[in-house]
């Protein structure tokens, strides 16, 4: 009997396809929005988690200037020097320290060129970031010391400049400096900040300082904490050393900052969760509006179908049967809407994930929830129209034109 009711409801829905479509449109949009938001949110959360994990051991970043200052805000704190990185590397709590400076430049190879980030650093940088060279080799210590014109290219740069050809051994020009590509970096994808990490060329920092920027400044120093050492302890030791090196008087604030990358990442995923929650609740409101849409159309449908209800009552339909007919119809409608919405939402999330270069992370739980919720919307918002249908007076209903 239940199966029969669903079959009849489906029949009634198909009988007026356009009206049915318009009825479920709200639910479709609502469910699609919720599914897309949650799936994309989950994907970017996963991305943040993955990038935290890709940092490998605990990574700290030192920047000159006080903490809580945005980039570009100078408080005249002295820049780091290469010797600072060397001194940090000598600390027992530090596994590796890499000086980092970067600039944006147009790189030329043959007829093609690309504007990218030139990162000056050393091989410790690759270890700290667990970044592999997939083809060719990394820098030698001789090249690093000498500031030789050698470079490693990221996957994005390789695609832009070299296309299908093997970049190793080729010469590229950075601001008039001919530079030999000695290695190709493994593809790393977007960072948790949404930046394409593969859009870079890495050169020995001395090469960058001498031949490109002409400055001995080191913008920041990346440090990986030695195994078995707590991050807090490492930060304390680093602060002591740097205060000494930078002659910060006792009682004065640090004129540099040490940032724990994991902290930033967890903060980012926190923001991400809040945003996902916010967008999802907006989407949920649209689901509610969709439900009201169903109620609206079902009410119109009851008026429009007054005569039909009259006929059904005349041939012996009980109040409860008319009620359940309309209720099941509303439920089937919203379930169909829910199913279409889920499919559409997943499609949007899939395309979105491709565009934003984040993993596509559909969650069965959310899909199930959306499905149950849309059925619930059908029951809740279908009840009122169904009740008004069931309570019609058969004589009046039959007379209705």
């Amino acid at each position, binding site marked *: 009997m239940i199966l*029969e009711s669903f079959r*009849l409801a489906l029949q009634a829905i198909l009988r007026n396809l356009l009206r049915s479509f318009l009825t479920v449109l709200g639910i479709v949009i609502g469910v699609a929005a919720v599914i897309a938001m949650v799936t994309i949110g989950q994907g970017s959360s996963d991305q943040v988690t993955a990038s935290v994990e890709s940092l490998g051991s605990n990574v700290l970043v030192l920047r000159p200037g006080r903490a809580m200052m945005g980039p570009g805000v100078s408080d005249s704190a002295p820049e780091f020097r290469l010797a600072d990185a060397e001194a940090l590397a000598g600390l027992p709590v530090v596994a590796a320290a890499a000086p980092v400076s970067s600039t944006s430049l147009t790189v030329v190879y043959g007829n093609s060129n690309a504007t990218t980030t030139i990162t000056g650093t050393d091989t410790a940088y690759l270890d700290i970031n667990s970044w592999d060279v997939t083809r060719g080799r990394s820098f030698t210590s001789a090249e690093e010391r000498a500031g030789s014109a050698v470079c490693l290219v990221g996957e994005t740069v390789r695609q832009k400049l070299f296309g299908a050809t093997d970049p190793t051994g080729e010469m590229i020009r950075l601001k008039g400096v001919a530079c030999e590509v000695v290695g190709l970096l493994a593809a790393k994808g977007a960072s948790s900040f949404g930046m394409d990490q593969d859009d870079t060329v890495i050169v020995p920092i001395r090469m960058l300082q001498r031949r490109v920027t002409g400055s001995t400044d080191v913008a920041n120093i990346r440090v990986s904490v030695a195994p078995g050492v707590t991050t807090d302890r490492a930060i304390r030791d680093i602060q002591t050393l740097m205060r000494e090196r930078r002659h910060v008087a006792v009682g004065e604030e640090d004129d540099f900052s040490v940032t724990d990358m994991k902290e930033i990442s967890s903060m980012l995923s926190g923001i991400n969760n809040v945003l996902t929650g916010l967008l999802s609740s907006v989407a949920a409101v649209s689901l509610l509006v969709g439900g009201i849409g169903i109620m609206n159309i079902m009410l119109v449908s009851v008026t429009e179908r007054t005569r039909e209800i009259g*006929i059904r009552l005349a041939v*012996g339909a*009980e109040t409860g049967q008319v009620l359940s007919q309309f209720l099941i119809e509303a439920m089937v409608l919203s379930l169909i809407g829910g199913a279409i919405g889920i499919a559409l939402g997943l499609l949007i999330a899939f395309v979105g994930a491709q565009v934003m270069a984040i993993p596509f992370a559909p969650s069965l739980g959310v899909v199930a929830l959306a499905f149950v919720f849309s059925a619930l919307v059908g029951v809740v918002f279908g009840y009122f129209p169904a009740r008004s249908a069931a309570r019609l007076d058969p004589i009046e209903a039959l007379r209705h034109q």
Partner: protein
Amino acid sequence: MPPPLIEFRGVSRSYGEGEARVMALDTVDLTIEAGEFVAIMGPSGSGKSTAMNIIGCLDRPTAGHYLFQGADVSNLSRDQRALLRRHYLGFVFQGFNLLARTSALENVELPLIYKGMARTERIAWAEAALEKVGLSGRAGHDPSQLSGGQQQRVAIARALAGDPMVILADEPTGNLDTRRSHEIMELLAQLNRDDGITIVMVTHEEDMATYASRRIDFVDGRIVSDTGARAMEGAA
């Protein structure tokens, strides 16, 4: 001697309150035996439709008693009356009242759905009913594809499908031309004669009333003439 099929004992039906109170039916006594073909006539506002609605259990008397097969049904609940309609009564209306965009077969199936009949059995019954009204070739047609006469036949098939004791026809020929009207009346007369189905018909056309074995005239909520059992004996 079994109790009469339909019996009104002082049935009244009034609308409104106080000064505005209108008596649509005024203490009517009426007895219809099983197997009769009754035509109810009268000008509009005479109470004939009200009587019909009460017989059809679509409405309840405000006073008096309505006995169906000897059982007092005047105070049944809405759903109990629905069950009564489902199992004993069939309706034919002036405006056909078929479901739009629904095939003739599905229309005829409608009462059977509420009887809880399984689909295959339902289709068999509905097809048999359509055959009885001479429309077996039109089962898949929508009402919009059928002529008025054919639509009324589908409506009669629907009334028949539920295997009723009584068919209540409210101006069944009101929307039809003369030729179709006579065809429909022939069909109703045949159902009454061959299947023993009691037929109660409201009409204002004298021609149509002649098919009935008994004629009851209403004026101002009262029965003013009733040809009674004599005509019935004549028919038998």
